[in-house]
């Protein structure tokens, strides 16, 4: 039975390993592609996705249809479509599930997106550690080729497409779209200067669109069930459904497909079951490691781009990382900054030198060697590494949990410094 209120996860069932082509087709799979190719022009497909209000699910939240519409289409030339499957944001575990459980959904979304920008080669840039996802995508790609959804004359049209599955070798920065392009070209994954934007000059200098896995997974359903249906799915300003998750010391850590705009409280209490016995909620990162902390008082904020942003954080990837009252927020931030310092590509100075500096200061603080001035230095660093001062978004993202921790958990920092004791 199709569950059209949960389009992204309707094929995910506990009684089978993953949805094969037959499973996928039995719930309307590849109908969206049929409609796109048989009834719509590429520009129409772009317009549908724009009208549906689908925004990027990788964290930035840019309109997918708008992105596609900015690709130069006036003359025949090579264009590339890329699925960003390099999921590596700590605390985020949604794309892995989508690819492992329902690989055809991504493939169909990628074919439709390629049709919309008239790309004849598409890449899935998959994280090297995602072995099971690779096996299942390879299997599904074979099925799709055999059935004629890939290759020459797709569904008897003039449209042709090959999808190449590329596995990366592990580095957080590969999720940044211009760094991803360098990685795909076989280079060190440092970000590129923008402009020119990849939409105009991307992979090997050709117009290129990069979309997150979950974003692409929405596309087949918008085409199949229509824009109006999609607009009806969200609860607030944003449209559609999204995979929301929770990890940490909650009763039932997990992942759920829910309407955009659902209150955080509903995710936390109803789905994650609240805190485990003996633990209290201290705060949470709403959308992965690179988002600002929010507090229990923010539980009634709606999970959409604007509302979370107004509350002082970002929707990000929509997967909550929950801080309990027995975990030290200072040490948690130290763990986060160690991650970002390690994963900095080293290309620009503020990030390369600034992030290790935050780590040094935080280590000193938790070792009982901190000074109160260090907190001012850390605050200064969050500004110096903030938006506009670095080459890409890694460092601005890295300082989000730090700046909000300094604001909300200042007493925890000061306790280490005043008591002069290691934890």
């Amino acid at each position, binding site marked *: 039975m199709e569950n059209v209120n949960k389009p992204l996860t309707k094929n995910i069932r506990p009684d089978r390993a993953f949805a094969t082509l037959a499973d996928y087709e039995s719930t309307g799979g590849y109908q969206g592609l049929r409609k796109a190719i048989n009834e719509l022009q590429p520009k129409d497909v772009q317009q549908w996705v724009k009208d549906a209000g689908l925004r990027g699910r990788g964290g930035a939240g840019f309109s997918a249809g708008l992105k596609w519409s900015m690709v130069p289409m006036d003359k025949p030339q090579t264009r590339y479509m890329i699925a960003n499957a390099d*999921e*590596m*944001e*700590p*605390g*985020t*575990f949604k*794309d*892995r599930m989508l690819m492992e459980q329902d690989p055809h959904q991504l493939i169909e979304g990628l074919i439709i997106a390629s049709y919309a920008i008239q790309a004849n080669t598409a890449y899935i840039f998959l*994280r*090297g*550690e*995602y*072995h*099971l996802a690779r096996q299942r995508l390879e299997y599904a790609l074979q099925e799709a080729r055999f059935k004629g959804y890939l290759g020459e004359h797709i569904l008897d049209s003039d449209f042709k497409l090959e999808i*190449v599955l*590329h*596995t*990366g*070798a*592990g*580095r*957080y920065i590969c999720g940044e779209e211009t760094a991803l392009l360098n*990685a*795909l*070209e*076989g*280079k*060190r*994954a440092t970000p590129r200067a923008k402009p020119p934007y990849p939409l105009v000059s991307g992979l*090997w200098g050709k117009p290129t669109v990069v979309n997150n896995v979950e974003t692409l997974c929405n596309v087949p359903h918008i085409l199949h069930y229509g824009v109006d249906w999609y607009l009806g799915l969200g609860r607030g300003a944003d449209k559609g459904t999204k995979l929301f*998750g*929770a*990890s*940490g*010391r909650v009763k039932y*850590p*997990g*992942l759920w497909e829910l309407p955009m705009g659902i209150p955080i409280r509903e995710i936390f209490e109803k789905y994650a079951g609240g805190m485990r016995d003996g633990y209290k909620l201290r705060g949470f990162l709403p959308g992965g*490691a690179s988002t600002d902390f929010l507090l229990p008082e923010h539980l009634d904020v709606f999970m959409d781009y604007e509302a979370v942003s107004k509350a002082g954080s970002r929707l990000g990837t929509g*997967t909550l*990382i929950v*801080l*309990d009252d027995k*975990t030290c927020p200072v040490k*948690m931030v130290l*763990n*986060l900054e160690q*991650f970002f310092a*390690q*994963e900095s*590509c080293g290309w620009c100075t503020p990030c390369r030198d600034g992030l290790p500096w935050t780590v040094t200061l935080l280590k000193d603080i938790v070792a009982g060697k901190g000074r109160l001035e260090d907190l001012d230095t850390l605050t200064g660093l969050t500004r110096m590494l903030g938006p506009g001062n670095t080459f890409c978004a890694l460092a601005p993202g890295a300082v989000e949990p730090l700046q909000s921790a300094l604001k909300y958990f200042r007493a925890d920092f000061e306790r280490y410094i005043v008591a002069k004791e290691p934890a």
Partner: protein
Amino acid sequence: MNEQTEKTGFTGLSPEEIREINAETGHYENKAAVAIEALRIVQKYRRWISDECLVAVAELLDISPAQLEAVATFYNLIYRRPVGKTVIHYCNSVTCWMLGSDQVQERLCRHLNVELGQMSADGEYTVLPIVCLGACDHAPVAMVGDQLKLDITKNAVNEIFGR
């Protein structure tokens, strides 16, 4: 370099390696683009990338060894030092850290009697940290070879070594 040659006994890339690398080049606009895939292919057979290996791959792809070295040292899953038959990557990112990744690491290293990055005496295992493996609802987790192991708090060592 000489000392390493003795250790690795490298006599050139094998026909299978060359065939697999060449098969990848068709998917990209130029040969240099397969650099990462090529290193992974070679590593599949040799476990790690020695200097000689690196030079041989660079020659095959018509790029300079320095360019390939810049790639090889950049990525977490390309090993430039010898590793055991099975690499155990335990996740040390935020959720796993909260739920006990430090203890997982300590138990693993103690069991194998190794430091991080070191090969166990029998050449079977190397333990390395890795960033978030995307299974935070089952933290703490680790990847043993290419198998993801979930919820390994209680008895990490037994879980992983199947005892």
